[in-house]
């Protein structure tokens, strides 16, 4: 005989206790949702603050102050383009005293400036880059020689900061980098409508410079691209092949277990350690060139490998065994199974992992510092063995510079870096969509 148990008596769903229980459940659910929403809000807030800060600071980095002045371009200074070959003319222009021409043009605007020291101070409102700017203009338009031209010339970084409002003109004259005299000149030019803030393509097309108004990210972009290229060429095939071997061929034994653990550990190793390794092995032992994208790429490849291997293994493992069975059942060899069926299906995951690894590598600074890619390099890198720097290193370098104007350059460079990261992610998504198939 069974004793009547609790389960035999009907449950009182309408009882007070039950209602309390229900209410509590609803309350808990609400709290949980609110907590989740709060977490999302906090992270969104951080993101907005960070991005907002960078964008508000960095936008200025893409713009530069220009001052209009009417420059006399005499034949005797520049040479006669009609009697010279283009090369000779270009050389002659390069040798010419451009700043003198600019200084002369200022005399008309500021007749009161007569003393030598004042004149030298007056020309400082222009960037030293004016020399190159003017030279380029004349070389490209030889027929302007012998005429007067109204030109917008690059202002110096201090003037630029004043115009952009980044220097407080109310403070004591000794505390700021711009004297009252310079401010008065600037005021006069502004009143004449000869000061303007314009989009500054130099920032996107030239290399680094000691002068903020002349500095550009292109050198760093090319350096990063070359480095990533080397990284990809090395890390992708090695990573994918390793993943395939470990997933499909490696026997299950202590050795493969050991290998697996080490790969996972490698992913957690601080990146600077890879830098040290790169320095010791690639530069110290193998004598590869310092500061070169080749070494940078090797080092970053080492760092990216674990990421690619882990992601690829996960993607390969996610391919349903039924597909393998089907292919094998038809008599496909192990290699055919992998290359005809497993890899195509795992590709989206592998590519995602690879691009995440690449993005990581793109943002990495520490290992590059170790192998000397932190050098000040003005030229656009020409190959993977030449000296180069990379975007994050450029950011690091500028952030370290004393000039006030480099602050906004730093933010602008970060924006460029972010742009490339977003582009890479977009490519990742696009590729995933392209390869993705249902099974």
């Amino acid at each position, binding site marked *: 005989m069974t004793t009547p148990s609790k389960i035999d008596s009907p449950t009182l769903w309408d009882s007070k206790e039950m209602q309390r229980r229900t209410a509590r459940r609803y309350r808990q659910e609400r709290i949980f949702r609110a907590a989740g929403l709060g977490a999302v809000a906090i992270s969104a807030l951080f993101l907005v603050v960070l991005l907002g800060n960078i964008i508000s600071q960095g936008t200025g980095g893409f713009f530069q102050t220009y001052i209009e002045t009417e420059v006399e371009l005499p034949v005797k200074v520049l040479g006669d383009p009609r009697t010279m070959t283009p090369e000779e003319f270009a050389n002659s222009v390069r040798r010419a005293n451009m700043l003198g021409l600019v200084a002369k043009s200022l005399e008309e605007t500021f007749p009161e400036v007569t003393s030598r020291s004042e004149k030298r101070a007056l020309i400082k409102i222009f960037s030293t880059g004016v020399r190159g700017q003017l030279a380029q203009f004349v070389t490209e338009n030889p027929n302007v020689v012998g005429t007067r031209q109204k030109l917008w010339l690059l202002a110096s970084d201090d003037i630029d900061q004043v115009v952009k409002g980044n220097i407080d003109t109310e403070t004591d004259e000794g505390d700021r980098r711009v004297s009252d005299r310079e401010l008065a000149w600037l005021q006069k030019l502004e009143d004449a409508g000869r000061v303007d803030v314009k989009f500054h393509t130099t920032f996107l097309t030239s290399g680094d410079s000691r002068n903020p108004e002349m500095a550009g990210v292109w050198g760093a972009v090319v350096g990063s691209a070359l480095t990533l290229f080397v990284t990809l060429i090395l890390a992708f095939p090695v990573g994918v092949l390793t993943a395939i071997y470990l997933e499909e061929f490696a026997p299950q034994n202590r050795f493969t277990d050991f290998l697996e653990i080490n790969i996972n550990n490698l992913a957690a190793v601080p990146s600077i350690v890879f830098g040290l390794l790169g320095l010791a092995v690639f530069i110290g032992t193998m004598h590869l060139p310092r500061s070169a994208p080749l070494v940078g790429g090797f080092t970053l490849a080492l760092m990216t490998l674990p990421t690619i291997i882990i992601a690829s293994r996960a993607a390969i493992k996610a391919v349903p065994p039924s*597909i393998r*069975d*089907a292919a*094998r*059942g*038809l*008599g*496909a060899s192990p290699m055919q199974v992998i290359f005809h069926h497993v890899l195509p299906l795992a590709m989206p995951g592998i590519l995602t992992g690879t691009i995440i690894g690449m993005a990581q590598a793109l943002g990495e600074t520490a290992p590059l510092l170790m192998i000397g890619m932190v050098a000040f390099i003005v030229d656009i890198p020409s190959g993977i063995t030449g000296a180069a720097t990379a975007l994050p290193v450029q950011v690091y370098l500028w952030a370290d510079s004393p000039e006030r104007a480099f602050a906004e350059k730093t933010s602008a460079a970060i924006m460029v870096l972010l742009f490339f990261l977003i582009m890479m992610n977009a490519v990742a998504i696009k590729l995933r969509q392209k390869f993705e198939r*249902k*099974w």
Partner: protein
Amino acid sequence: MSAMPDQLSRMTEAMPEVTQTTRTPKMAARDVHVYYGETHAVKGVNLDLHQDEVTALIGPSGCGKSTFLRCLNRMNDTVATCRVEGSITLDGKDIYDNKIDVVQLRARVGMVFQKPNPFPKSIYENVAYGPRIHGLAETRLDLDEIVATSLEKAGLWNEVKDRLDTPGTALSGGQQQRLCIARAIAVNPEVILMDEPCSALDPIATARVEALIEELKGRYAIAIVTHSMQQAARISQKTAFFHLGNLVEMGETTQIFTTPREERTRDYITGRFG
């Protein structure tokens, strides 16, 4: 002179009847033991598969029937801990011999799986894959023909002939399974192994697949693992009952389902298992 061929042809016509009694099996398993590490999964099984006959392997889960089936085309090779003892022959040749090429063996002994598993490719590519990797078609035209006849044999041609480019995974479950059968017969196998081919299908799709199996039985030796007693009864000529790794009883399907000799067989098929 003219009488001779006549006589010969009459003799050969009569042959099947003669061989009926002492015919040689297409595949024969003798004292087959399978181990998974320490587990003894199949214990001394003797079983013959004959041409133009469907053999159903039944038994409770974990009785070793699927394991045994997978030994017949060496699908267990990929399991590192799996060990097979005894002999399994195909046309008298041991398939576990070193000289046997597994790839060729699997082409000769095709397999259809429990879950329909078409490749995530087009219907055409699904069927063409096998002939392509084995080099069975010289030209694109040959391949087209193989695909068409295979689909026709699988009873799927009329349903898919206008959309050979659509993905195989877009078909219904039953069509997918028939596509998998078409894919298997496209490499012109001699034996077809089926591992619970209808367990994921509805009754109508199941009936279609069963009808197909019935039609295929004339050309291939078929072994089918099934959990559905009724299915075994419907489509097979021979039934083998496995229990705890042993082949408990093997016989004519009608005999097994009306008068099983072994009590364990009876208990299992009537639903008396404790």
